[in-house]
């Protein structure tokens, strides 16, 4: 059990502090902007808070790190936090905020557009890496890109390459 150490703040400030915790793999992206904070149940009197989060992907190993970071962040502002992982309703990339998309682009990670995960069948070519819907290069902005691998460096990303500037880049997958 982590003891609270800081001077206790009011609930709105606590929410701000919790939502400012960042993804360990994507340090410019806060969990608030990722859309994974699903609820805060605050007891200001007793200095306790229950934070409900939902994983982006079922096996996302960052969930455990973020849970610990939430407990630490809450302790700094006078709260003993417990974190509940809930799967209902399931996360979708539509929950990324505009600021979250911007944070991804800052790291040269292509961000999914709202509704991108449910756009129907994807055209397929044979014999070479299949070209799916165009993802713009987060470095040079060109739409002339190709998919290298549908699975990238973490569970939430796919790997692309820009034909214009030649750089490979990650895409935050749309689901």
């Amino acid at each position, binding site marked *: 059990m982590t003891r609270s150490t800081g001077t206790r703040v009011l609930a709105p400030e606590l929410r701000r502090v919790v939502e400012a915790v960042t993804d360990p793999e994507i340090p410019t992206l806060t969990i608030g902007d990722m859309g994974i904070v699903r609820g805060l149940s605050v007891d200001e009197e007793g200095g306790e808070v229950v934070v409900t989060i939902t994983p982006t992907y*079922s*096996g996302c190993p960052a969930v455990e790190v973020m849970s610990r970071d939430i407990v630490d962040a809450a302790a700094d502002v006078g709260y003993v936090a417990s974190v509940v992982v809930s*799967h*209902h309703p*399931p996360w979708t990339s539509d929950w990324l905020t505009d600021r979250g998309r911007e944070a991804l682009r800052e790291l040269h990670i292509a961000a999914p557009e709202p509704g991108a995960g449910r756009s129907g069948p994807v055209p397929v070519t*044979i*014999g070479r890496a299949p070209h799916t819907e165009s993802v713009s290069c987060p470095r040079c902005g060109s739409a002339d890109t190709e998919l290298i*691998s549908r699975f990238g460096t973490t569970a939430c990303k796919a790997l692309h390459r820009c034909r214009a500037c030649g750089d490979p880049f990650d895409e935050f*997958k749309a689901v």
Partner: protein
Amino acid sequence: MSPPCVPAVLALADDALIYAQRLGEWISRAPQIEEDMALANVGLDLLGRARSLYTWLGAVDGSGRSEDDFAYWRDEREFRHLWLVERPGGDFADEMVRLLLMASLDVERYAALASTASVAGIDELAGIAGKAVNESTYHRDHARLWVLRLGDGTEESRTRMNAALERVAPYVDELFTDSWADRAAVAAGIGVLPSSLRSSVLGYVGSVLAEATLDPLPEPAWHARGGREGLHSEVCGFMLAEMQHLARSHPGATW
């Protein structure tokens, strides 16, 4: 009293865990490094799914078991997974056939679980299942793209794909065989009978094979049976021994 759908959900969780273990064995052995990552990612999704389901099961079945209790402290006869998922990976072609079959099945059976659990007000189970549908759709697309490229690729890749279909065929029927657990769950309004998914799942798989100019799934000389009753093939014990060794040698060990 635990909900009537518990044994059927346990079977789903075991399918996910055991297949995740087999997929993890591909890491550093796949044909290319992107595929190492892809199969690891698919396995990670399945492992996460199994963990969520075990946690839910331990909370509702009255046993208070943790996810680790389910994974590490049950013996072979207590696992309820299909024979298909315990097969060693073998040729990459075999793995793509298996992934196409399992992901196609998962998309449909988890969609049914999500909608029925939602109607029954079991929100956590509905949420886990809903996420599984999204993820398995992505896995299915990945398998489909490989089957198309290998089937309609070189003479070598095509020959190996057709050989893989021969080897995998005996395990297909069990995917669509109803167990007592399935019937108990469906009687309580949760999930779907696997037999009712046979035509749509095999229809989808068949359309991919046809598009890939491959032979249809052949009629096998024998059928795998018994996974849902805890009767497994000889490879299962060896795999569990490896998977459970650390936890059993050092009980309570944590990272």
